């Protein structure tokens, strides 16, 4: 935390005393000032972004989970779907986002779709790799108990995937917000993305960074939530009391 503070102070000093123009780098004090001054507008524009992020990420998580399961259970489905998913990831957002917006309008739907598009694959890869990391002995044991594939999945593969899942979650949650902003950038009435675009086109670098600040805070909060969830979800990872390091 200290390091972040240091960076901000350094930035402030540099912005003030290097004689660099505010166009290139507005000072943090200025950014915060602007953020406070326009807090109402920022707040109004943050809500749609949160909505897009949360719904989009929710859909993406659900879809990633469903497909990871399908793909885990059927090698054929895996071979059929994986190329499609990989290809979906290879499409540059800058080219796709405008099309999605044109097809689905300016409402919430295209934003949710784009956020999902950005975050779906990391979650899917994490889950699939996590399932694959399951201990063979444990799986054989379950099979010997007469556990169905579903039971084996629930009892062994799913818990084994948790550390991978959380690694994926940390990555995607940061992309989710960025993805929502990007989606808005491609076409929207309101939202932080639009706010940034407007600020930029009205030549207000201070406001651009104020919106960026809000966006960063939002992401940090979401990131923090994932860390907390991981703590709660994996108690057995926090055992090493008395261990040296």
């Amino acid at each position: 935390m200290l390091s972040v503070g240091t960076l901000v102070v350094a930035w402030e000093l540099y912005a003030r005393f290097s004689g660099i123009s505010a166009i290139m780098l507005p000072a943090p004090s200025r950014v915060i000032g602007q953020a406070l001054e326009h807090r109402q507008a920022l707040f109004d524009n943050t809500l749609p972004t949160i909505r897009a992020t949360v719904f989009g990420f929710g859909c993406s998580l659900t879809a990633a989970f469903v497909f990871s399961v399908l793909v885990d259970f059927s090698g054929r489905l895996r071979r059929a779907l994986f190329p499609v998913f990989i290809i979906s990831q290879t499409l540059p957002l800058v080219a796709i986002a405008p099309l999605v917006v044109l097809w689905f309008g300016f409402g919430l739907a295209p934003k949710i779709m784009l956020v999902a598009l950005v975050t779906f694959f990391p979650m899917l890869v994490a889950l699939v790799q996590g399932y694959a990391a399951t201990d063979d002995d444990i799986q054989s044991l379950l099979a010997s108990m007469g556990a169905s594939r579903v039971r084996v999945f629930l009892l062994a593969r799913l818990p084994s995937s948790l550390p991978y899942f959380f690694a994926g979650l940390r990555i995607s949650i940061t992309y989710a917000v960025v993805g929502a902003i990007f989606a808005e950038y491609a076409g929207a009435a309101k939202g932080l993305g639009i706010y940034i675009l407007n600020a930029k086109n009205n030549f207000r670098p201070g406001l651009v960074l104020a919106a960026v600040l809000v966006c960063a805070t939002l992401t940090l909060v979401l990131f923090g939530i994932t860390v907390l969830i991981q703590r709660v979800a994996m108690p057995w990872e926090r055992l090493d009391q008395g261990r040296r390091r």
Partner: protein
Amino acid sequence: MSAPRLELRQLRKRFDGLDVLADISLTVRPGEFVSILGPSGCGKSTIFKLLTGALQTDGGEVLFDGTPLEDGRRPFAFMPQRDALMPWRRIIDNTTLGLEVQGLSRSQAREKVAPLFAEFGLDGFERHYPAQLSGGMRQRAALLRTVVQQRDMLLLDEPFSALDALTRAGMQRWLQAMWERHRWTALLITHDVREAVFLSDRIYVLTERPARVLDEITVSLPHPRTDLASPEASAIEARLLQTLLNPQP
């Protein structure tokens, strides 16, 4: 003589380039306690893996109650050599695993398992995670997980190897009592000749890899066995050690 519960006919298994099981034929009758002795690495655990379906045979047949063992059917309660405890489950939940798979609710399963914790020297450790247990305690937890399943047949892969003499004797006595009460059919892999004699009706001795059956010894001592110092027991022990130490097919 009753029909065999389990019958292995000329089972073969090879791992690329390595013949492990050359020709394993053995039978276990209902209610019988049979042990397998054999040199380390000869393929004992592999036999269990073939039975539980973790590996596929390269030849031979496995009959259970006279019919080939199909994929879906798993009549065994299996204790693997490495305990295979789930690191993310507390000990109590690890031991109820088999019951949960059988469809019992968590609380029912716990009820069934909980009274045995004291007997297995694990009371007070119900809510610990496997990483917090000693080697022998893990092994006992794995054994507990196995026996509470009450399947047609037990497959035990060195269940007592990590236990001291006292604990081991206790567990063996418990197992024998249970076996007598429930007339479980059991197949046990062990390194301990005395253990084999103490528990078994019959003992198969395997050769070095590629494994064949080297000897089959019937232990016709009365149950429950308490006195292993009896001359009959000592004789069988001596014969087994002799076979193991000087294997001549």
